[in-house]
Each structure stands twice: as C-alpha cells, then as structure tokens.
C-alpha cells in the first residue's frame, strides 16, 4: 500500500509554469543579456571575444567550483581568494627567486593548495571550528604568510634582493603557456575551466563518491549512520577546494606574469557569488558544476557587455547587482519548494 498522499499528482498549469520559470528563468536572463549585446555590439559576437570572456572568467569560475565543493559538504570556504593570491606569490617566488622552471612552480603551488585545504579541513573537521570562522581566519593567516615571504613586495624578474643581488630567474615560457597557450582557437585557461567543470559534474552526478559528498552536506548524521566516512569526505572536499583555488591562482599568475601581491584579492566575493548562484540555477537546488560555470559566464557577459556599452565601472556594479537580483527572483521567488542546502554556518560539527 502506498500512502496515497505521495502518489504523484498531475501538476496544475500554474505549477508547471512556475517550475518552468524556476528551471529556465536564470538561463533566460543570461540569454536575453547575450542577445542584447550581440545585437548592439558588433565586437561582442566575435569568436575572439567569446573566448576572451571565458578566459577572463576562468580563474573566478575555478575558484567558484572550489567553493561549490565546500558547499556540497554543507560548508563554505572564504579562503579561496587568499589561496589563489598565495599561489601567485609562491609560483613567482619559485621561478624568480628559486630560479626553477614552471613545472616545478606548478608542482609547488598545487602542493601548497592541498596543504591550505588540509589546514582548513583540520580546523573544521578535527578542531571543530565552524567553517565560516575557520576559513576566515585561515585567509588572514595565508595572506599574512604570503606577504611575509615576499616582504610585502611584488616579485618580478630582475628585482633586486635584500642581499643586493638581482633575482636570478624569471617567469618561464612553460608556465606562461598556461595563460598564453591555446589548443587550436581555444585558450588553455578555457580548456582547463571546461575540463574541471565537466570532471566535477561527472564526479558529483555520476559516481557514488559524488552522491556521498551530497549526502554529507544534506544530512551528515544520516550519512554517518549509513557508514559514509563523513570526516574523510569533508576533508577531501576542503582539500579539493584548496587545490582548485591554487589552480585559479596559477592561471592568474600566468596572466599577470609577476608575483603581484594584490592578486586574488578581488576573487573571493565573485567566487562565492558564482557558487551560490550555481545552487539556484536550473532549479536543481543543490550545488552543481554546470550551474556554477553558468554563474561565472553570466558575470563575464555582464562585465564585457557593459564595458562595450560604455558604462563606467560603478554603473557596472549596479547592473551586476540588478541582474543578479532578477535571476535570483526567478530562481527562488517562484519556486514552490525550498532548497535544502546550507552553506556555511557557525555550527561546529
């Protein structure tokens, strides 16, 4: 006997309409914006511009995917900006002062990202500090550490060191290829961005590890009782986040071509926004990779399109906020059901 209550009912017209709006509203806003810019701005519709936008947003999107991982296990990571900045300085330090090739720098940076993720995981999982607080504190520590390492200076080739000599190394071509290279017409950052999105989508949606991550985020106690190694999955998620943030940093570093101390500073808010928007896009109601990518693309479209239209940066902020709000209205206000993902809490666990 099925409890009659749960027999699926045929949805009313209004209900289906609402579901449609929830599912496609955000996409519709994005498409409408794109259409507008395509019509008004001839330069917008060039292939170059499309790849340019995707390339520009790749680091934000990748860091956003990291935040998404943390949200998946019911947490959040406010240290992605700091981690990306750290990656930039460390890559520069390794190549310019350590005089190593790009491959070594990449290895060091990725290792650093894993370590930062591990530190976050330790603080959250073992020391039971709530994610918001732990990652906030880590981000202060990492930024401070980075600046201590480089004495607050941007590292560039030919810089004079404190012992009076000139830095021996430089950003090597293999490293810079991360930004400047391309496969056919497709720039490397775009390939990395799409590949990571697809990979994460596959893992989250199509493997049991992905499901387990979701389960940990949605009900950690149920997951624990079902035998899922909750602590392990949370650790993996934060380390994954650290890794992705450092990849974002690698791309930023290759683009900037020097160990800019301010790199990564502006990444955090956008990365978090993108991951949160990802939750609401497509009516899925839980963190997901393509949603996050779409959120990033919307930002890129707005920044580029608004610039072409000639809006000053502050009008862009305004426009960004308004478009974000409209998209959110579509996703939430017309949604019949509640989404159930919690991102970030002061709950120690």
């Amino acid at each position, binding site marked *: 006997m099925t409890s009659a209550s*749960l027999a*699926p009912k045929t949805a009313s017209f209004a209900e289906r309409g609402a579901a449609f709006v929830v599912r496609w509203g955000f996409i519709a806003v994005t498409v409408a914006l794109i259409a507008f810019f395509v019509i008004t701005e001839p330069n917008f519709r060039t292939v170059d511009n499309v790849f340019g936008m995707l390339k520009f947003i790749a680091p934000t999107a990748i860091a956003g995917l990291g935040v998404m991982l943390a949200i998946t296990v019911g947490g959040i990571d406010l240290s992605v900006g700091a981690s990306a900045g750290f990656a930039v300085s460390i890559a520069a330090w390794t190549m310019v002062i350590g005089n190593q090739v790009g491959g070594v720098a990449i290895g060091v940076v990725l290792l650093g990202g894993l370590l930062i993720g591990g530190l976050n995981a330790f603080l959250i999982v073992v020391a039971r500090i709530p994610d918001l607080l732990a990652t906030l504190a880590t981000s202060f520590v990492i930024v401070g550490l980075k600046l201590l390492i480089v004495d607050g200076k941007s590292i560039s080739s030919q810089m004079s060191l404190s012992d009076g000599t000139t830095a021996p190394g430089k950003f090597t071509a293999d490293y810079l290829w991360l930004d400047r290279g391309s496969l056919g017409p497709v720039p490397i950052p775009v390939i990395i961005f799409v590949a990571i999105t697809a990979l994460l989508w596959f893992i989250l949606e199509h493997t*049991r590890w992905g499901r387990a991550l979701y*389960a940990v985020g*949605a*009900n950690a106690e149920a997951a624990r*009782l079902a035998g899922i190694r909750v602590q392990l999955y949370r650790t993996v998620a934060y380390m994954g986040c650290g890794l992705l943030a450092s990849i974002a940093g690698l791309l930023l570093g290759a683009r900037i071509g020097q160990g800019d101390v301010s790199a990564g500073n502006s990444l955090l808010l956008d990365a978090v926004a993108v991951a949160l928007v990802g939750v609401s896009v497509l009516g899925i109601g839980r963190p997901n990779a393509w949603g996050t990518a779409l959120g990033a693309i919307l930002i890129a479209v707005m920044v580029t399109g608004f610039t072409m239209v000639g809006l000053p940066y502050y009008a862009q902020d305004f426009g960004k906020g308004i478009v974000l709000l409209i998209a959110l209205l579509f996703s939430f206000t017309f949604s019949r059901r509640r989404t*159930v993902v919690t991102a970030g809490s002061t709950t120690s666990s």
Partner: protein
Amino acid sequence: MIESSIPEGDDQATLSPVVSLSGVSVAYGSNVVLTDVTLDFFPGRITALLGANGAGKSTLIKALSGANPRYSGDIAVDGTVLHLSSPVLAKAHGISTVHQKVADGIVPGLSIAENVVLDDLANASRHPLRNSKQSLLDARAALATLGLDWPDSLLAQDAARLSISDAQLLVLARALRGTPRLLILDEPTSALTAAEAERLFTVLRALRDTGLSIVYVSHRFGEIEALADRVVVLRDGVVQHSSERPFAWHEILHDMLGRATELEQTRVDVRRGHDVVARVSGVPLLAAAPRLDLEVRTGEVLGILGLIGAGKTELAELLAGLARPASGSLSLGGEPYAPKRPSDALRRGVVLVPEDRQRQALLPGWSVAHNISIPFLKLSSALGTLRGARETARAQQVIDSLGVVTAGPNASIDDLSGGNQQKVVVGRWLSAGPRLALLDEPFRGVDISARREIGGRLKDLVASGDAGVVVFSSDVDEILEVADRIIVLVAGVVELDAYADETDRASIVGAFLGARTRDHSAVPPEGHPK
C-alpha cells in the same frame, strides 16, 4: 541481576549468541545513563527492550550500532570481543539499526530510491559509477520486503517530501537490505499506523524464522505481546528484568516503572460534553474531499482517529491558524473564528501540540524552561522584561505534573530522551490553561506512565469546565484510553462519531477501515495482552 540468556528450546540451547554484551556502561559527561548491562542476543529470537522514557534504551542501541563508540565494557560478536567504533564496523558485522529519530535516516536532496540504497554509497565493493537503473531496482526490491510498491515516479522524488511515516517505512526498508544478523529497531512503529505496523510484524516474524536476531523497542505492549520471544526491561540504565513467554505483565510493568501499575484501565468515567467550543462548518479537509461539519464540546476529550492521510493534521492546522479553509467557516465559542496565523489562534486560547516535535516544537540548544516559556513570553515578562523566576516556576510545574525526567528546568532540551522531550512539548501547551487544546499524535514515543499522566492532565483540563480537548491519533488503543467521544475520519469524511461507552472496539475498527475493506491484512493487533 536476572540470568538473561537461557534460550527456550533445547535445540536453541546449543546455539551461541550473535552478539553479547557484558558490563556495558555509557556516560554522558559525568551522567551515567547505562550501568553494567550484560545481555545476549540469540539467533532466531525477537528481544523486546522495554523501559520508561529516559531509561537508556536508545543509549544502549547507539552503543550496539557503533553510533556511540564511547562505551565501556565488552561487546562480542560471535564470541569475539571488538570495539564497535563506527556504524560501518557494526554493519560489517551484520548489525543493522533503525534509530529512533527518523530524521537521522533521511538525506534530503537525494531521491527516495537513493535514500533506500544509501548504504551503498559507503560500500567500497560497489562500482564507483552510479547506476541509477540498478539503484531503482534495488530500492524497489528493498521496499517490496515491506510490501510497499511505490511507483518509480515517486521513487525519483526528493526524499525531503516524505511524511514522517513514509520516511519511517523507508528507513525500515533500508535496514532490511542485505542480510543482517542482528536487526535493531528503536520504536519503529511510533510513526506508523496499525496496518503498516502489522505488515512490519509479518516481515519480522519471517525474518526471525530465518535465524535473524531482532532487538525491538516499543512503548506499545500490544505489539510486544504479539511479537516478542523475550522481554528485557531497563530502568535507570540497569537491566531490571528479563523473561521469556508467557510474559508476566504485572511484573514487567512493576520493574519498568518501579511501582505497581495496571496495564489496562477500564473506562468508567466517560464524560458527556456540554457547550460547543468550536465548530467546523462546510470545510473540505483535503483537495477532493467533501465539506466537513464537526463540533468540539467543552467538558469532554474528543479523539479523532484516522489513518495516515485521513486529514487529521489538516484539521488540526486549520483550527490552529496554520492553514486557512478553502471554503466554509470556523467558529470559536459561538463567534466567528478566522485565525490568520498561529498567534491569532493563541490569542483566542487555541493551542496545538504539533505532530513532529523535532521540526515544529523544539528549540534545540535551549533549556527546558526556555522551551516551555516560548509561547508565553508575555506572561513571563513585565514591561517586556523577562522574569526568569516566572519561567522557572512554569517549567518546574510542567516537570512535576508530567514527571519529566531531567536534571531540572535549566537542563538543555537536547539532553532529554525522546519521550521526555515530548512531555515537555505537551506540558508547554497545556500549561497556560487553553480553551481549545489540539494534540496531534501526542503520545509518539511516550511510555505508558507518561501516557497516563498526559491523559490525566487532559481529563483534568476538561473537568475544569469550559475547555475543549481534541486528540488526533492513528492508534485505536490510545484513543480508547483517552477519549470520551470518538470520531473516525477517513479521507476527510467522518465515518463514526460516538461516545466511548456507546461504541466498541470492533465498530471503531470497522469504521476506521471502512474505506479500505479490501486491505484485510490491515486489521490492527488487539490492543492489550490478556
């Protein structure tokens, strides 16, 4: 201590226990809630674990299931002592558990099918790639063991949408997957109706006959009489009693509560109400249901009985201002009554004990006193400033009148056992002398003496004169015990409306199942053992 491990038949004497506990103790901080428990669980036997609210049943189960590794003493599986440090480990040794809190078993956001096969996510031997077709098949197979045939379109829905009873069925189905050797069920029927419970019992008996050992916790003695091979009683964390069939219920009750209690109370005091305190006129309870008319009178306890989905909660919520009638009207004390929100109802003296205490009533992390005072902040304050003494006094009064087992008004509500939390919730709502008290499944997880205490308070309330009380339940025995007047609700329609002494169990059950006569297996078990 009573020797607890003599199997009944000769053939079983040679069997060795699946799991044996010796000297198991558990403490929360310095509070020892389980002391030196020694028990054996034999294959092919159903052990009923009894005890008042807070006796330590769930605590024992948490230790047995690996959910609480911080126990002392030895737990041996097949004679080998091991430390049950995690649920995975317990499961690997064939110990499968359904915990008391259903919410701890459901992952919202995953589909119902995925929830049924949740354990597979942790199963390293499974292929890492998801196979949703296989999951669906597995889920269907698992649900079929309970006789549930939920359509695929339902299985694909978000599990968050399941009602508490469906969710309970889901966790049961999950626990029965694979081949457990010890199956532990902590109050599995408290959210089920009799029909579903009976189907569960059929399954359990079949499983027992295959050699499974089962531990069963319940506050319903009818079920235990119908099911158990052995009864173990815990009191204050100590094993007080262990006996085989036939059960000496007087002794069991005595050992459970520490004093003599009658199992059955004969109703001699069925009251007749006088004035109509609330009236429902022409209100459809469910989308397709006809309009309903109904009166609640002062001076009597009205029991509304119905299966899951009968519209009980809808009715309670209408009266409490949580929902608004689609058509028709309500009146209270002769005046029109159209509460827009719970605060309106409250102001008119209408209170609701909701069906899901965790989600709808408790403030986690708060003290007992603060949990109790929350609807009455105005009464607990002067010029908006809270008076702690008033809150404590009210809480103490609730604790005393319902016998809540707690360290005191300042203890955290989280530290109370499930039944005691329920008493706090009921006590909260009755403490203000309501005009109309609505209690939706108020006896969920409550032990027999607490049930009597709550029932007694309800009778006191109506005896005082101008208050009306409505109890909503899907349990015939609960209703028979507490209600003066009984209404049976089926799919939003009143099937029977009679005073308790003018009808009998058989006609109530008949009306109860009126709409489902084809479902013969759904006859609830006899209420009380002889």
